């Protein structure tokens, strides 16, 4: 694991230097061709959290705030802000002279309209996180926006970028159904690139916005988002000079690109669908077989997480060291004792829990509460088809301690209702993206209010009043220094309760043609300052 960490650090450092050098000499003009994995269907990121739409469309829009490469909030449509009333009121000062791509002036009315009529109705994350605590949004003058909350609300500044809250034009959407507005297929934004054409299933063409409010950028004349569903074809297209930028490179092909000086690569924890993701095994705590924490601990100890990192991710990532991603450094608890790989201890725990090895290789129940004697220790494991290798290793590792695992690959559209609505599973693996703040992507995994049919919430069905109270306290506490110990306490509790096993943190590897540069790790305005030499 140490070796992998070292490789990753060196890779990132070397490539960060390469990017920095490239950024010193940007050139104007040129076309950047970006491979995207799916046809987005529409280009309005304010009405969906779908990764396909956000990847293709965010460069057309802006948020009130952006992010720097560490994930911290920086000015975008808002040039400054103040936090008042202990975090219950946020006041934003908007930039002057910003115009929509059709020439109309951008004002605070657009921001208020976007939140009231679009984001809080149709953007799943914004509605779920902010909807219940927001008291109202005011636009006292053209350049001021005020967010009033019912109680102090800590994560707001992390929820205002083009991914979480892209601002759309009031004059385009007012009086219409935002989901059926024709502008969703020919969007008008304030962003660095203007929409030109959308050839369905094939490509989206964007052109430089000459009136962009950040005068120095963009450098590129044109961006083409090319729909290439197959990851292998994406790499071949990069090698063949047909595309210039890939959002991700499959593990087996990374070494080939790395050895070729025509390409550059860098790792980032920002995925198009979310950031700071951890591959996580969920236990269905409603199942009698999994109610005993000794069984869950035994499963955690039977899993060699280093093997997951090596064999599935080819070393791209790190073994998870805490329930919260290490990329949210202030909330990530260091030095926690997560169950270490120890097959003998796992067997001892299973014996103690009443799961005995008899004649068969699979253990059977002898005196387990709520389980008929003689029941075999057999569980199913649900996963997306793309995560099949996780299932294979689960089966192999748990088989070694007498637990039978049956893999059930399910497409995302089937997986979500099976797990969250029907709760028809024993265990599963989900890439839980923590987002830039625990309130955005971590709370949903543990808070008891998040048990229900909504996809990718509390899959375990975990209930702990103390944890609920701590999350509520964390959301109300604005100062980061005071939030850190709260999230540490949460992590200490859940590591004892083990509703999940946190396997590996999964960054993604971007690759691009070496003649291009200036890309940002954050997915939102990733190519705002990008350039390509002829």
């Amino acid at each position: 694991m140490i070796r992998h960490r070292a490789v990753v650090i060196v890779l990132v450092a070397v490539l960060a230097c390469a990017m920095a050098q490239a950024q010193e000499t940007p050139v104007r003009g040129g076309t950047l061709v970006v491979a995207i994995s799916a046809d987005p269907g529409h280009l309005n990121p304010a009405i969906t959290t779908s990764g396909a739409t956000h990847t293709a469309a965010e460069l057309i829009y802006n948020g009130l705030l952006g992010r720097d490469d560490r994930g911290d909030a920086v000015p975008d449509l808002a040039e400054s802000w103040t936090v008042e009333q202990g975090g219950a009121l946020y006041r934003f000062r908007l930039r002057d002279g910003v115009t929509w791509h059709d020439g109309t002036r951008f004002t605070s009315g657009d921001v208020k309209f976007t939140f009231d009529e679009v984001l809080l109705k149709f953007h799943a994350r914004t509605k779920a996180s902010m909807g219940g605590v927001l008291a109202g949004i005011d636009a006292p003058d053209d350049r001021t926006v005020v967010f009033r909350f019912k109680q102090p609300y800590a994560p707001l500044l992390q929820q205002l970028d083009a991914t979480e809250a892209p601002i759309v034009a009031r004059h385009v959407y007012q009086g219409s159904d935002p989901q059926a507005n024709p502008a969703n297929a020919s969007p008008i934004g304030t962003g660095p690139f203007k929409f030109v054409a959308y050839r369905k299933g094939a490509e989206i063409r964007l052109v430089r916005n000459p009136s962009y409010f950040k005068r120095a950028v963009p450098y590129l004349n044109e961006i083409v988002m090319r729909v290439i569903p197959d990851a292998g074809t994406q790499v071949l297209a990069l090698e063949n000079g047909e595309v210039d930028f890939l959002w991700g490179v499959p593990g087996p092909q990374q070494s080939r690109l790395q050895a070729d000086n025509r390409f550059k690569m860098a790792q980032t924890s920002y995925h198009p669908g979310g950031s700071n993701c951890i591959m996580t095994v969920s236990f269905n705590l409603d199942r009698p077989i999994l109610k005993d924490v000794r069984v869950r601990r035994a499963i955690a100890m039977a899993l060699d997480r280093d093997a997951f990192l090596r064999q599935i991710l080819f070393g791209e990532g790190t073994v998870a060291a805490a329930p919260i991603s290490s990329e949210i450094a202030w909330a990530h608890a260091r030095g926690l004792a997560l169950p270490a790989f120890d097959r003998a201890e796992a067997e001892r725990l299973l014996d103690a829990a009443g799961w005995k090895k008899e004649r068969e290789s699979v253990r059977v129940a002898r005196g387990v509460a709520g389980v008929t004697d003689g029941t075999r220790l057999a569980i199913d494991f649900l996963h997306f088809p793309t995560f099949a290798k996780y299932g294979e290793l689960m089966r192999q590792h748990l088989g070694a301690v007498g637990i039978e695992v049956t893999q059930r690959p399910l497409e995302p559209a089937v997986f979500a209702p099976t797990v969250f609505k029907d709760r028809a599973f024993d265990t599963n693996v989900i890439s839980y993206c923590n987002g830039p703040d625990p309130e955005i992507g971590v709370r949903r995994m543990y808070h008891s209010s998040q048990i229900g049919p909504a996809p990718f919430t509390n899959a375990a069905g975990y209930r702990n009043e103390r944890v609920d109270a701590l999350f509520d306290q964390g959301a109300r506490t604005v100062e980061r220094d005071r939030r850190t110990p709260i999230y540490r306490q949460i992590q200490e509790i859940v590591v004892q309760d083990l509703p999940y096993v946190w396997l590996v943190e999964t960054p993604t590897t971007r690759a691009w043609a070496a003649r291009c540069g200036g890309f940002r790790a954050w997915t939102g305005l990733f190519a705002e300052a990008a350039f390509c030499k002829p």
Partner: protein
Amino acid sequence: MTPRYLLWRLVQVVPAVAGILVVAFVAVHWAPGDPVLALAGEHGDAAYYAFIRAKFGLDRPLPEQLVVYAGRVVSGDLGLSFVHGRPVAAVIAERLPATILLIGTALAVSTTIGVALGVLAARRAGQPSDLVLRTAALLAHAMPSFWLAQMAAITLAVGTGWFPVQGLSDARHAFTGWRYALDVLHHLALPALVLAAGELALTTRLTRTGVLDALATDYVRTARAKGLPEQGVVRHALRNALLPVVTVVGSRAGLVVTGAVLVETVFAWPGLGQLLLSSIQTRDVPVLLGLFLLASLTVIVANFVTDLAYAWLDPRIRYE
């Protein structure tokens, strides 16, 4: 072919299409999966997903949804795509030309070259060239199209730089006119050849067998006895030998909607195959039903055309 027969064939289309639609509707809705994720994205709360379900009528009982859908179809409205937010007919129509181009080219190439190679193999039956052709045809037919596609992309595209590996046109240049046409042909070459390979092999083998059978018949012996040159003999025999070939080519018309999924995915060809795959993944039910409807109509029309071709190839066949 009498007008009465034509009318009868047309009348048959109505119950066939209606039956297919009902079966497809029930099958798609009974299959596990929830389109709300595609509609709304992840991380919403329960109330939001309930709101979206109600907005798109997904909360209504299945028979009621079927009645509403059938009523719309009768009036020519295939509904709105969940993912695209636009009429299904428009979504399908945008992708149709790319698929017709790909499948049409592949079928044309495989049929013309396949028949020619089949005749060649039949005329040289038992000779080394026949053995080579038959073995090659067997191999080409046995190779999975996605594997062949990847091999073609690695060797003929990246390896030589002669062909692009993806798309219908060059992303960097917005060509127009004849330059655009040439660009499309350049992009079409690999996917069409890969798709044609399997079909070509089948056509070659069918033609060879058909011609050999025909060459052994009495009328061919008579023709030869009368001194007809060998080329004329083969032309005579070919007409009868083509009946099974026409049947197979006609039955492949369903490919227009379904058959090119793998090749379209590997080569990022923006056609109906890709649309079908993504619609299955996102449970975009209205688009799926629209594609099923199109596929069934295509097969019905292709069968009709096949019947017409029979009558043309063999004047003894009459439809009344």
